[in-house]
């Protein structure tokens, strides 16, 4: 029997079965099975492009098909003889991959992506452990501290405390047993700098910790790494074992009387365990809750012994400072913030990723030159730095040089270096609510201001986002923020109000639109928006109605469809499936009820 059309389908592609089934079902439904033959070919052409079809005799080539596409092809191409232009193969699609000529200066990351982290020889080949050798054989602890002081290195965990001072306190604290701890509990959403260092160059951190141990007089160290980083943990364990095998950890390192060993402890996922006192509680096996400071860890830390705790990145800087000198390090950066910093660029930018740049680089350079600008060429709205305790920095500060002091001046923090970029489609009230939800959820509950305060602030923010905002809410938020920041025990509570305060300061108009006009200017907050079908554009294809999960859309085929806002759950599926872009989001707002 002769067929009028033969179809080849790329049966090896993932999802091909579903597409083929949809195709066959539709063919049977329209009784085309005597006219059309479907045959399986493993692949069609050299460039795999999802599930593909070729329809002969014309040889029309369709690519990246879903089951729904297959149904459309049957109805349009096979039944009506109208090839579906938008699904056709349009030449070999190779996405151009571009990266800017790097503005990076790599200190912390100098080996990451260049050496094999699973092989200690690779690290030694690039001067690994030479700094430890130099420290142990040529330098006194005082000389190391002097070099660190000259370098101006400050804690990379976020607070920016001078590292040489921290080490000095731990060194001078009386005690027979002391500990060094590495804080690898990188919990900020969108931050993954520490993971990259631990996974890519674990020995640099080990070496930095060994140097710290030599300076303060410790012989035992702990890595505290969150369990969400399994690759980092296994890489670290391999690295520690290799260092032990070479005698670079253990007794009498390099033939000196310095002995030091390391252990990895996994965090169980609580955000507050990134706070140093909570982290030490967690290492001891207790519930991760912060304790009051003073006493500071330098005098009474892990197991009540003097302890030095630094971030992954801080330790990774140390060997380089020893080898190249403090002056070299201090030649980079700004007046008070020396050296380089790693940033994780995430959010609405074209190229997400990780960079290391000298401090003092502007936000614009990070977002546009490194990140490639805003996704889909939308407008930049704000950048959130420093994680959930940081603030949102608006467009007017795009040219602000990034360092510890400048970020603090505009209501944000350096934090561990998270850099979440937001575009014009982001609602700043919703963002503030999101971060408050995070901190409220992660509050350990030990102190009242944080436990109760974050909950109350979240309630007010939720009310505002859902159209129940009251006049006076903004002022209430500001007052609560002040008390929570002042009275909380640890950095989590002290920093929790930052996203709210900074968004109120820079985007007060958005709060007011939500509260007084019940309107969400960015059209994000679901209770304040409506999906609307433009009757002029709608072609009555019924696709939206068929895809609506709650049957909120009414309309006959070929007639204009209408969405019932009282049924609609604002899921946005109709907008995604509409072939003619007839559906838009509106947030008209309403006057306050009398």
């Amino acid at each position, binding site marked *: 029997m002769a067929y009028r059309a033969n179809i080849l389908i790329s049966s090896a592609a993932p999802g091909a079965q579903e597409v083929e089934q949809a195709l066959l079902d539709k063919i049977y439904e329209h009784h085309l099975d005597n006219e059309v033959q479907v045959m399986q070919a493993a692949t069609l052409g050299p460039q795999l492009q999802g599930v593909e079809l070729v329809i002969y005799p014309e040889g029309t080539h369709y690519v990246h098909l879903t089951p729904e596409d297959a149904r459309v092809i049957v109805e349009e191409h096979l039944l009506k003889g109208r090839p579906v232009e938008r699904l056709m193969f349009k030449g070999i699609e190779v996405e151009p991959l*571009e990266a800017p000529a790097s503005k*990076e200066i790599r200190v912390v990351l100098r080996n990451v992506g260049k050496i094999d982290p699973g092989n200690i*020889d690779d690290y030694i080949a690039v001067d690994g452990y030479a700094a430890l050798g130099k420290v142990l054989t040529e330098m006194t602890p005082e000389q190391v501290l002097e070099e660190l002081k000259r370098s101006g290195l400050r804690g990379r965990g976020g607070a920016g405390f001078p590292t040489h001072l921290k080490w000095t306190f731990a060194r001078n604290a009386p005690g027979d047993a002391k500990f060094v701890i590495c804080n690898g509990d990188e919990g900020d959403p969108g931050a993954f700098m520490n993971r*990259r260092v631990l996974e890519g160059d674990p020995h640099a951190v080990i070496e930095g910790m060994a140097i710290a141990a030599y300076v303060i007089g410790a012989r035992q160290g702990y890595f505290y790494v969150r369990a969400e980083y399994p690759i980092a943990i296994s890489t670290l364990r391999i690295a520690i074992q290799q260092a032990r095998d070479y005698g*670079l950890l253990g007794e*009498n390192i*390099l033939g000196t009387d310095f002995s030091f060993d390391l252990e990895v402890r996994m965090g169980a996922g609580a955000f507050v365990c990134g706070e140093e006192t909570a982290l030490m509680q967690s290492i001891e096996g207790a519930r991760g809750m912060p304790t009051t400071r003073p006493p500071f860890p330098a005098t009474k830390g892990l197991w009540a012994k003097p302890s030095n705790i630094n971030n992954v990145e801080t330790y990774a800087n140390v060997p380089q400072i020893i080898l190249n000198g403090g002056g070299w390090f201090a030649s980079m950066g700004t007046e008070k913030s020396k050296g380089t910093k790693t940033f994780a660029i995430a959010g609405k930018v074209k190229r*997400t990723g990780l960079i290391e740049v000298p401090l003092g680089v502007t936000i614009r350079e990070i977002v546009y030159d490194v990140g490639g600008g805003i996704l889909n060429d939308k407008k930049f709205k704000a950048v959130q730095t420093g994680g959930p305790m940081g603030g949102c920095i608006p467009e007017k500060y795009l040219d602000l040089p990034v360092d510890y002091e400048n970020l603090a001046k505009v209501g944000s923090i350096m934090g561990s270096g998270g850099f979440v970029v937001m575009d014009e489609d982001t609602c700043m009230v919703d963002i503030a609510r999101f971060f408050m939800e995070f901190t409220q959820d992660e509050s350990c509950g030990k102190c009242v201001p944080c436990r109760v305060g974050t909950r109350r602030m979240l309630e007010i923010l939720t009310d505002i986002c859902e159209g129940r905002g009251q006049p006076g809410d903004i002022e209430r938020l500001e007052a609560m923020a002040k008390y929570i920041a002042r009275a909380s025990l640890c950095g989590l509570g002290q920093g929790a109000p930052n996203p709210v305060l900074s968004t109120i300061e820079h985007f007060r108009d958005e709060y007011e639109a939500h509260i007084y006009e019940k309107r969400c200017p960015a059209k994000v907050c679901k209770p304040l928006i409506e999906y609307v079908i433009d009757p002029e554009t709608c072609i009555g294809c019924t696709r939206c109605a068929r895809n609506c999960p709650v049957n909120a859309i009414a309309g006959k085929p070929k007639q204009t469809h209408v969405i019932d806002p009282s049924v609609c759950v604002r899921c946005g599926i109709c907008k995604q499936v509409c072939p003619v872009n007839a559906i838009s989001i509106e947030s008209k707002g309403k006057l306050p009820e009398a």
Partner: protein
Amino acid sequence: MKSLEELQKIKERALERRRMSAEGVRVRVVVAMGTCGIAAGARDTMTAILDELEKQKVTDVAVTQTGCIGLCEYEPIVQVQIGDGEMVTYGKLSAERVPALVEKHVVGGEPIAEWAIKQTA
């Protein structure tokens, strides 16, 4: 190891090994295997490279891994270097692109320009 001299010896040995001619290595292939790379399919890419080399009976290639090079958006990232020549960095190198990569670049010596990450000003 009990002295600085021994550390120095290990360093020299490691540097020697990196000079590829020493051990009959003609091509170096490096797969970025950080969490970002693995999440994007670097393990599949790595397996595909090893399989393909075996299938094509290519033995003068050293395949190693490294951490994240910073362009997480473009993972899986694979770097290929022939001899002491320039290292070519490929982005979005999924397992299905591996046979062509091995055939054209690793064996044939011709980089595939359109899959490489271009550096812009």
